[in-house]
């Protein structure tokens, strides 16, 4: 049997999976491992030698007050953004699955912000906040105050992701079979009762997925942060990802920046895994 020989298998593997594996290792795995090594060095990005400093960067990262402020801000931003993204997208998904005239048109419309990159979206909203809203409410721009800038970031993120999450909830609504809904009606449920006790529990996997996706996206927000507020006013809306970027590329503290990035990764991983585990536990089947 030549099919089971190891050399044959290896040749097949290289032929088919060689390029994919090579690129994956070169772009993801090698930099990841090398990045762990970089956290142990003090490197300025230019010099040839990378001085080995052990755990100094990690200690410095834990002492970097700006970093932890940015992290706290990211957590606050993410909590608000995730809650509102999911409320808005669930409501939209409900409305566009009721058989209303033109519902496909509405679905397509709500999705439009997702087609466009965060940089462009941020600049558009900057114009809206700085010019249009100022003209409508004849007040100073929201972007020039600390809380206002955070509010703007949350609003834009909700607007940006609601249409995408809506599509996932729409798929969830479609997967709840009509029979079950009919049955709950015959058993005497009011529409709101059947929503609470029948439809939402059956859509649990959609919720798990949307919350997971929105958390992971909000946690590493960068594009909109850069174009909408640029961290301002006075650095009070710098999110963790932007802080990491500035630490490494603007201030040339590559080792420290990388350590802070690794901490960000650890936080992301813990939050993501916990959320998926909690979500999986209570899944119901029809």
């Amino acid at each position, binding site marked *: 049997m030549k099919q089971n020989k190891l050399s044959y*298998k290896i040749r097949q*593997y290289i*032929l*088919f*999976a060689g*390029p*994919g*594996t090579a*690129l*994956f290792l*070169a*772009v*993801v795995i*090698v*930099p*990841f491992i090398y*990045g762990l090594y*970089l956290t142990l060095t003090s*490197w300025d990005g230019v010099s040839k030698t990378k001085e080995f400093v052990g755990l100094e960067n990690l200690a410095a990262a834990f002492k970097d007050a700006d970093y932890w402020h940015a992290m706290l801000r990211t957590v606050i931003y993410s909590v608000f953004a995730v809650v509102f993204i999911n409320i808005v997208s669930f409501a939209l998904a409900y*409305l566009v699955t*009721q058989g209303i005239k033109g519902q496909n048109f*509405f679905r*397509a*419309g709500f999705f*439009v912000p*997702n*087609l*466009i*990159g*965060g940089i*462009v979206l941020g*600049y*558009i909203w900057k*114009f*809206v906040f700085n*010019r*249009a809203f100022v003209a409508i409410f004849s007040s100073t721009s929201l972007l020039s105050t600390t809380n206002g800038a955070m509010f703007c970031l949350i609003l834009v993120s909700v*607007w940006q992701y609601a249409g995408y999450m809506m*599509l*996932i909830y*729409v798929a969830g609504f479609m997967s709840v079979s009509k029979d079950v809904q009919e049955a709950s009606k015959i058993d005497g449920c009011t529409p709101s009762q059947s929503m609470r006790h029948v439809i939402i529990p059956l859509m649990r996997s959609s919720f798990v*997925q949307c919350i997971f*996706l929105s958390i992971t996206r909000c*946690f*590493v927000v*960068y*594009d909109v942060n*850069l174009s909408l507020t640029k961290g301002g006013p006075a650095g009070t809306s710098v999110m963790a990802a932007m802080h*990491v*970027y500035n630490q*490494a590329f603007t201030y040339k503290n*590559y080792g420290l920046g*990388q350590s802070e*990035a*690794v901490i*960000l*990764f650890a936080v*992301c991983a813990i939050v*993501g*895994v916990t959320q998926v585990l909690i979500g999986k536990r209570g899944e119901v089947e029809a």
Partner: protein
Amino acid sequence: MNENQRAARNKKIAHAIMWIVLLVMFIAFIFPFLLVVINVFKTKGDITSNPLALIGAHGFTFKNFPAAMKKMNFLTVFLNSLTITTSATVLTILISSMTSFVIVRNGKWKFCTIIFSLMIASMVIPFQVLMVPLVSVYGNVLNSRITLILMHVGFSVSMAVFMFHGSIKTNIPIDLEESATIDGCNRWQTFWKIVFPLLKPTIATVGIINAMAYWNDYLLPSLVLKKKDLYTIPIATQAFYGTYSTDIGLIMAALLLAMLPILILYVFLQRYIVEGVTSGAVKG
């Protein structure tokens, strides 16, 4: 009025209310885009004095567009984005489907399981963790479209392999491949003539999701492409905003130019894009 008529009437009223709510939400959703569109045709002074007016006091102007196009070097930038997005998308589809084929059909081989698990695990790594080492390892080959294309592919391989893996495993019966072998196909021919054509729905999903991600990506291209004539649309928009932020008419035109290609595409491929994104999100 009997029970049925009343129910029908209530339903009608409920639908009307929902329709109005949807319409209000819809207008709120597209309001920022509308604002850009009306201001593109105004002079700088008119935008500043009244950004909400449909037509500026000085009437229509078509000067913003050509000026922004020229200053942004739009044609070059657009072609850069187009080349990078198309090549990276095609490569991602070819390379990932081939990789998953071997991984699925050698499911019992430890080596394949390890690579596959490594790919799945790597999906939780945020780009921020990789950007510093990436720039440091590949510092010598930056400023090249090919480098960017290969990096794009490398970053999306794991997700794409995961999607093709599921699709090959559940949709392609192994009997089909065995009969192809009996008919004289080798593995290479079997893959391209039998398996690949059957993967069409997944190819569409992977293609759409990745093409959109490549087209709109800012951070990776901004780290790789530092020369002006290599810029993609997002980087060029950012650079343009930095230079001309006071000339708001030009900015409006540049933002509209940056959105226009994908919006036009969306008008024609709307159904496929919505379907692709949905099935991609639900599987991923």
